[in-house]
């Protein structure tokens, strides 16, 4: 079924068991992002130390795609340098705009490649990007602080 390309098992797993979904009280930047068209909301905390992402934590409400994607993104970013983390966000953004023509580099995106199918569903791309954009915003603010 066409639906299976959207809802990979990995995504449903992250949806049911989201990673880092508990706000860490200590952070270097906190952001709140919303998706005004569907009402999804996310608060995301980032801690950076010596140019490295020390922790990412979040809380929020949203569909399976946005929740799973945020879970995948936060797990992926921890331990990366700011530069590598931002490059990873860019790689994911590029995958989302690929209209189903790219599968994504598993070495870079890890579980994130499970979201490749989302790029075929234009209405869901913003769901998948919510957590990544929130992370990018928070990481840049942390870097600037």
């Amino acid at each position, binding site marked *: *079924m066409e*639906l299976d390309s*959207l*809802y990979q098992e990995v995504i449903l797993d992250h949806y049911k068991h989201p990673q880092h979904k508990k706000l860490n009280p200590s952070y270097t930047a906190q952001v709140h992002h919303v998706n005004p068209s*569907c009402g999804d909301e996310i608060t995301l905390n980032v801690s950076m130390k010596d140019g490295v992402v020390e922790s990412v934590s979040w809380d929020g409400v*949203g*569909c*399976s*795609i946005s*929740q799973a994607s945020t879970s995948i993104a936060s797990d992926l970013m921890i331990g990366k340098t700011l530069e590598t983390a931002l490059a990873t966000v860019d790689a994911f953004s590029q995958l989302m705009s690929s209209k189903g023509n790219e599968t994504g580099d598993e070495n870079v995106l890890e579980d994130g490649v499970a979201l490749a199918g989302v790029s075929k569903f234009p209405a869901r791309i913003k769901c998948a990007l919510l957590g990544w954009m929130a992370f990018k915003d928070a990481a840049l603010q942390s870097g600037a602080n």
Partner: protein
Amino acid sequence: MKSMFSPAEIRKDFPIFAKTMRGGNRLVYLDSGATSQKPRSVLDAERNFYELHNAAVHRGAHLLAEEASSEYEGARAVLAGFLNAEVDEVIFTKSATESLNAIAYSFGNAPANSKFSIKPGDRIVVSELEHHANLIPWQQLAKRTGAELVWFPIDGEGRIDLSKIDELITERTKVVALTHQSNVLGTIVPIEKIVEATHAVGALFVLDACQSAPHFKIDVKKLGVDFLAFSGHKALGPTGIGILWGRLDLLNHMEPFLTGGSMIESVTMTDATWAKAPKRFEAGVPNMAQAVGLAAAIKYLDALGMDNVAKHEKDLTGYALNQFANLDGVNVIGPKNNIDRGSVISFEITGIHPHDVGQVLDQYGIAVRTGHHCAWPLMRKLGLVGTTRASFYVYNDESDVDSLISAIDEAKKYFKV
């Protein structure tokens, strides 16, 4: 008459139902609350206008200008008949949103001694059910003028709570603006008592009829409201055309919202005076073909008979509510009985986000709306992030409801809830 009401026959008048949807399925269109589909007669009316009569209305000394004006004014007469209104009381706007903003801005622009003037300490009354289009114009008017925005709360079933009506509508109240039917829950608001209370304190009543005028008979004289707005595209008509209806004695004392061509009586370099309604509120060359298209839509509805339309939708809603009552893990949000409610059913499936529900339904050719339905404060009040909403119209029948119910089962299986 009811036996003659055949959605299967009606669907043949709507070209879009020939389309094949995802998974090779037929279109099950359950999103008429967002916008309705259009019968061929509406598409033909728009095309005919452009092919045979196109010219700027109320300008020009040529045959086409004459014909265009006659078509456009003929459309106004059709709408007036539909609402049991005077012809000059019907104003064409681009949307119901524009209509509601026009009223709100007219209040904000009124001189101090006018019935419309709003000052600090005055009150504007809305409800928790409102669509953003009948909330934000009033909320912002209150902010601009220093007036106080107050609202009717809703009860657990999504019905307006009238118990505090005397505290809400007081001598300070200048305007009461309410939806006729909730776009999210289907609740029909019993406006009679509220209109009475509004007029008793000398205030004006504005009715958002977007979810009612397409679905049951509206008679502005019987309703006794002062202003009413609805959109053409939810009533089988084209996009880009909305209706603002107001009592003539009020319209001719109201400040216009948009100024420019057509809406003037006289102009100098430093001043201008306004034409009478409806021109006073129709600045610029209007959406002529869309007005003519909307008139064709109204003729289509009139031929079906609005009472038959209402009966059909009520029966179908009753059928759907019974089906929903048998589903485990599915909650209808809003009135669960079929009393004073329209053909809109919002629901949630435990454990599946509305966006994901909509995605699975789409796989079966079923079009529904998901999310907060432009009624975010209502969602917050209900403690929900959103709902999935099925809304019915003349072309829907029990087979559509059956498709929906079986796809909901599939969604539950898919997400293992």
